[in-house]
C-alpha cells in the first residue's frame, strides 16, 4: 500500500549546517495497518513522515501509495502536499482559531470542491459536493469522534482532547488513502493520553485506514501498532510487531529504548542450534558466571555480546528453584508501585532489576534466589 524506498533527507539548520535526517529509510505498510515510526527526538522519524506528506522534499528515494508514485528522485516526481490527498494530524493539532468546529472539519471538502475547476491532473479531478452531502459527511465524521454536539462551538473554546479529536476528524473527512499522525497524543495529560490511545486504536481498526504514526513514546507504539520501526540516527534499526520488538530486540539500542532492561556483558563460549530453527542456544561467560542464552543472531566463540533481560523476566524466589541460570543474591532495594513491586537484587558485584507481583514479601537485606530463563535472555552482538 505505502512503499518508502531508500529515503534520504537533509536540511540546513539555523547555523546553515546541513543536518542529515533520514538515511536510507525503506519500509512498506500493508492496507489497513497502523505502522509506527518510533525513536528518540532527532532520529529522523518526523522528517520521514513529513516527506511522505510532501511537506519536506527528500534528497533521494521514492515514495508510492497504491502504486501512485508521489515522490521519486530518479523519475523527477514530486506531488505537492495538497494534491496527495493524505490526512494528517499535527502535533500542535493546528486547529484554525478563526473557524468553528464544523468549519474546521468541512474545510478539506470545501477546498477540494473549489479547486477542481483549475486542476487538470486525472487524480485531482474531483467534483464539488452538494451542501447537504457535505454537511452529512462532516457530521458523520464529527459523530465518529464524538464532537457532533459541539459543531457550532468556536475552535478556541475546545479542550486539548477535543482539539485532538477535531484534528483527527478533519484528517478523516476526505476519506484519505493514508492517515499520517505526528505525535498526536504528546500534548495531552497522562490520563487523557491513555483514553485517547484506546479511542484512536478503535477508530483505526474500525475504519481500517492505513496509518503512519510517529511517536517517541514506546508504550504508545506498543499499544497501538501492527508494526513498529525503531529509528536511531536517521536509520531504521528494526522493524517488527510490538511483541518482536519487545521480546526479540535486534540491537542494544532497541532493547534499551523500548522498555526497561538489564544488560549483562560477556563473551560467547559456545553456540549450538536450538530446536526452534531460527534460534540458537549459546553459553556466555559474564561477570556473574556462565549464562545460558538464546540468540537470533549468528554468534561464534569469542564474540563480545551483551545479554538483555527484561525486569519482569528476572524471576525471584526464596527457595532455590530447579533449572539453569540460577544465582543467590540479596535484596538491595524495593519500590512498591501498587500493581507491582520493583526489586534491586545484588548478585555478586552486579545489581539486577526485577519486577514482581507484590505478593513476594522478602525484606531488604535478606537472601534471595535469582533465575534468568534462557529463552528470555537475548544475546546481542556488541558492534
Amino acid at each position: 500500500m505505502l512503499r518508502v524506498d531508500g529515503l534520504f533527507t537533509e536540511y540546513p539548520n539555523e547555523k546553515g549546517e546541513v543536518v542529515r535526517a533520514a538515511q536510507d529509510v525503506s519500509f512498506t505498510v500493508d492496507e489497513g495497518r497502523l505502522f509506527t515510526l518510533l525513536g528518540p527526538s532527532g532520529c529522523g522519524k518526523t522528517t520521514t513522515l513529513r516527506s511522505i506528506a510532501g511537506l519536506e522534499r527528500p534528497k533521494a528515494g521514492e515514495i508510492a501509495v497504491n502504486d501512485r508514485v508521489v515522490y521519486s528522485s530518479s523519475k523527477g516526481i514530486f506531488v505537492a502536499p495538497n494534491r496527495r490527498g493524505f490526512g494528517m494530524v499535527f502535533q500542535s493539532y493546528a486547529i484554525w482559531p478563526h473557524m468553528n468546529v464544523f468549519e474546521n472539519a468541512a474545510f478539506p471538502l470545501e477546498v477540494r470542491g473549489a479547486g477542481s475547476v483549475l486542476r487538470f491532473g486525472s487524480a485531482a479531478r474531483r467534483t464539488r459536493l452538494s451542501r447537504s452531502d457535505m454537511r452529512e459527511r462532516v457530521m458523520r465524521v464529527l459523530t465518529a469522534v464524538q464532537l457532533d454536539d459541539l459543531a457550532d462551538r468556536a475552535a478556541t473554546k475546545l479542550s486539548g482532547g477535543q482539539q485532538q479529536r477535531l484534528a483527527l476528524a478533519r484528517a478523516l473527512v476526505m476519506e484519505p488513502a493514508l492517515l499520517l499522525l505526528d505525535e498526536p497524543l504528546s500534548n495531552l495529560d497522562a490520563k487523557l493520553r491513555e483514553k485517547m490511545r484506546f479511542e484512536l486504536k478503535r477508530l483505526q481498526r474500525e475504519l481500517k485506514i492505513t496509518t503512519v504514526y510517529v511517536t517517541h513514546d514506546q508504550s504508545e507504539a506498543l499499544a497501538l501498532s501492527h508494526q513498529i520501526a525503531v529509528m536511531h540516527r536517521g536509520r531504521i534499526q528494526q522493524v517488527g510487531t510490538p511483541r518482536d520488538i519487545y521480546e526479540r530486540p535486534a540491537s542494544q539500542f532497541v532493547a534499551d529504548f523500548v522498555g526497561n532492561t538489564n544488560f549483562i556483558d560477556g563473551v560467547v563460549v559456545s553456540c549450538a542450534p536450538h530446536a526452534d530453527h531460527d534460534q540458537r542456544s549459546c553459553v556466555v561467560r559474564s561477570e556473574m558466571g556462565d549464562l545460558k542464552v538464546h540468540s537470533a543472531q549468528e554468534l561464534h566463540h569469542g564474540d563480545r555480546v551483551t545479554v538483555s533481560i527484561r525486569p519482569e523476566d528476572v524471576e525471584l524466589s526464596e527457595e532455590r528453584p530447579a533449572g539453569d541460570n540460577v544465582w543467590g543474591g540479596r535484596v538491595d532495594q524495593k519500590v512498591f508501585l501498587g500493581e507491582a513491586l520493583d526489586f534491586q537484587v545484588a548478585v555478586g558485584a552486579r545489581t539486577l532489576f526485577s519486577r514482581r507481583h507484590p505478593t513476594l514479601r522478602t525484606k531488604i537485606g535478606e537472601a534471595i534466589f535469582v533465575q534468568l530463563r534462557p529463552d528470555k535472555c537475548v544475546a546481542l552482538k556488541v558492534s
Partner: protein
Amino acid sequence: MRVSTGATTNVFDRGAVLRPQFDWKWVIIGASVVFTVYIAVIPLAFLLWQSFRTPETAATAAVWTLGNYAAAYGSTETLRLFTTSLQFASGTALFAFVLGAGLAWMNERTNTPFKTIFFALSLIPLVIPSILFTVAWILLASPQIGIINLVLQGWLGLAEAPFDIYSVAGMIWVDGLHYSPMAFLLMSAAFRAMDPSLEESATMSGASVFQVARRVTLRLTWPAIVATILILFVRAIESFEVPALLGLPSGIVVFTAAIYQAVHRYPSQVGLASAYAVALLAITSVGVYFVSRLSGQGSKYATMTGKGFRPRQIDLGRWRWLTASIFIVYFLLIVVLPFSVLLWSSFQRFYAVPSTEALQNLTLDPYRFILSYPNLPRTVLNSLLLSFGAATIVMLVTSVICWIVVKTKLPGRWLLDNVASLPIVFPGLVLGLSIMIFYLNVDVGIYGTIWIMLIAYVTRFMPYGLRYTTTSMLQIHRELEESAAMSGASWSTTFRRVVLPLLKPGLLAGWIYVMIVSIRELSTSILLYSPDTQVVSIVIWELWENGQYVELSALGVLFIISLFVLVLMARWLGQKYGIKE
C-alpha cells in the same frame, strides 16, 4: 534586526516543480525590494553626500568640502552642543525610566488600588502630542505666566518663581513625563512576561523579598531594563518639540535644534545641518543596534513559558495608599493638569492666569477663530489623507516584505528585513532633511507637494508597520498552513482562507497605529510642508510662533478630543476583531 525563523519553509514553494513558469510572486517580491531600497537607503545617501558639499548659489557651483564638518565640529560650541544633548537625553531617559518602571511594578506586582485606570496611561502619548504637552507645561511652569509658579509664589511669598521650565532640568521634566508611559508599557510587558515560579522558587530556597528582587527579578529583567533605557535615550535625543520650544528661547541647543536652526538660517545652511544630522544619526544607530542585540538575546533569558501563569502580587498593606497617591499625583501631572490648562486657556480672549476676574471673561472666541481659520478644511483634509494613505501603503508593503522574510527561504531576506527597518534610526527631523535634500537635487516635481510628505510618512513609519505584521506572521504556526495543504488547499486558497484571516487583527492594529502617529507627526513635516500642504500639527506650530496661545489651545483641545475618539474607535475595533494588546 529581527530573528527570522530559519526552520520555516513554505511548502508551496516546493510544490511548483517540473514546470518552471512565470510567477507573479517574483514581480511582487522584486517591486517591494526596489521600493524598500529606494525609500529607505537613497535619502540616507543624499544626506551623506550633501554634508560634504558647499552651498550652491547663483554665482558659484557646489564643490566638495569638509567645511561643513569643520563648522559643525571645529568650535568649542560643538563640545557644548554634544554635552547638552547627552545631558538632556540621558536625563530624560533615566527620569522616564524611573517613573515608568516604578509605576509598572506597582501595577503588575502589587495590590495598589485604582489599578484598573492604569491602562489609560498607555493612551497618553498617542492622545496628547508632544507639542501640546510642551505648550501646556509652559503655561503651567514658565517663570512669568506659569500657574504653578504664581500659585506657589502667592502661598509662600517667594520673590522668585520656584520653577524655570526654560532650563535643561525643565526640558528633562517635560520630555521625561511625556515618555514615561512608554517606559511604563515596556516594563509592564517585561514584568508580565516573567514566570512567577522563577521568583517563587527563589523564595522557597529561603531568599528574602529583597534578595528575590535583587538576585532574580532584577537579573531576569535586566535586558529589558537596558533596552528600555536605550530606547528612551534614542527617543529623547531625537525629540524636537521640547528642545525647540523650551531650549531655544534660553539658548540651550541640542542636535535637533541645531539642525532646525541651520536650515532656517538665511541663507539656509543645508550642508551644516547635514553634518549635524550625520552625528545624530550615528548616535541613534548605535542605540538602536544595541537594543536589537538585547532583544535578540530574549530567548536566552527565556522568561516566557506561558505555562501555569498566575500574576503574583505583593500585599503592600497600609503602604498601598501611598502607592495609590503616587499614582494619582502622576495622573494629575501627565493628564489632568496639562489638559485643564489648555482647556482654560482656550476659553480666554487673551491668555490670563485663572482668577475670579478671568472667570468672568470666558469666551468662545478662540474656537470661532479656529473654525474660521482660512485653511482649516484644507489642513484637516491633508492630515486625514496623509495619515490614511501612509497607513494603507505601509501595511500593504510591509505585509509583503514580512511574508518574504518570515515565510520564504529566499537568500538575502534578512537584508530586506534590515533595510525596511532602517528608517527607525532616522530622527524625524533628519529624515525630513534627507528627503528634502533628495528631492531638491532630483527634481521629479513632487517637492512642495503633498506627495513628498506622503513618502516621508511612509518611510518614517514603515518599521512600525513591519513590527506589527512580523509579530502576527510569526504567530501563525507553520502547521496551520501545512494542515491546509494537507487538506488539499492550493497556495492561494490557503493564503486567502487561513493566512489572511489570521493576519487581519495584526494588520488592522498596525494600520490604526500608523494612522494615529502620522496624524500627529510634526518633526518631519516641519521641513517639508508648503502653504498648500499644511497639516494640523504644523498649524499648531505656527500659532505658537505667532504667539496666538489661546487659539492654539482651542485647536489643541479639539485635536486631543478627536485623537481620543480615534483611539477609542481603534480599541473598539480591536476588541471586535480580537486584537490582543
